[in-house]
């Protein structure tokens, strides 16, 4: 899977939880889930669970604690996919 494909899948996953739609339109790797997209912290776990379902991977606590930005999430997904 290319990084672009990964990014577009991630964008679909986070969309229902985003409270700042303008930032979603200009999503980059640097985008921060809480600061920029205003995703509620109690919904970040839904992003993590959706990512697990979509990519059929398991995200442990050490990986989850990093998943606060697009970049960090893509890195987690890539490394978990590589372990499969």
């Amino acid at each position: 899977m290319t990084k672009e494909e990964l990014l577009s899948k991630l964008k679909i996953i986070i969309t229902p939880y985003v409270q700042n739609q303008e930032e979603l339109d200009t999503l980059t790797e640097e985008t921060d889930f809480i600061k920029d997209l205003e995703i509620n912290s109690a919904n970040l776990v839904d992003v993590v669970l959706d990512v697990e379902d979509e990519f059929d991977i398991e995200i442990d606590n050490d990986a989850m604690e990093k998943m606060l930005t697009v970049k960090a999430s893509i890195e987690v997904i890539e490394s978990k996919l590589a372990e499969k």
Partner: protein
Amino acid sequence: MIGNDIVDLKLASRQSDWQRKGWLQKLFTNAEQRLILASENPQLQVWKFWSMKEATYKAHQRQFSLSPKYNPRDFSCHSDTVVRVDQYEYTTTTKYVEHYVYSTSMFNSGSYISEVYDKEQHARLELKKNLSLRYGVKLAQIELIKDENQIPVVLCNKIILKDLNFSLTHHGNFSAFVIDL
């Protein structure tokens, strides 16, 4: 150090499905999960524990200038008033009123002012008013910004007020601030 967190219960029930597979397991310790499931009102217990963890996360983050992390399981509730993270113990108070749950968390006991408002952005304004009185400056001279770790700090005449111990929270129809006296 101090932190606070408010949960609008109506909004929370719309935004989150706590019974979703894996949801509790990712956020709560095994002991917390048992207490939640044994509780008379599991959903309310979820948000009580959650607000205790979030309030403590904020106090802990300010205490050690920590960069943001999503590690709610590392903050474990040991009673209604104690949350531990690593070797540190924080004292919490949690208030449950019809439409919200509100927690404050402190590392050292001390006197503080804590106020809840039923409008989303009200706490920011009221905190600024409090500070403008405290420092004898105009409201416009007080600014609230976030530092590189996303921790809120106060600027007075563009200068950071270091060591000011406070926390802000908002969710749905509610907002609150807490600050050292």
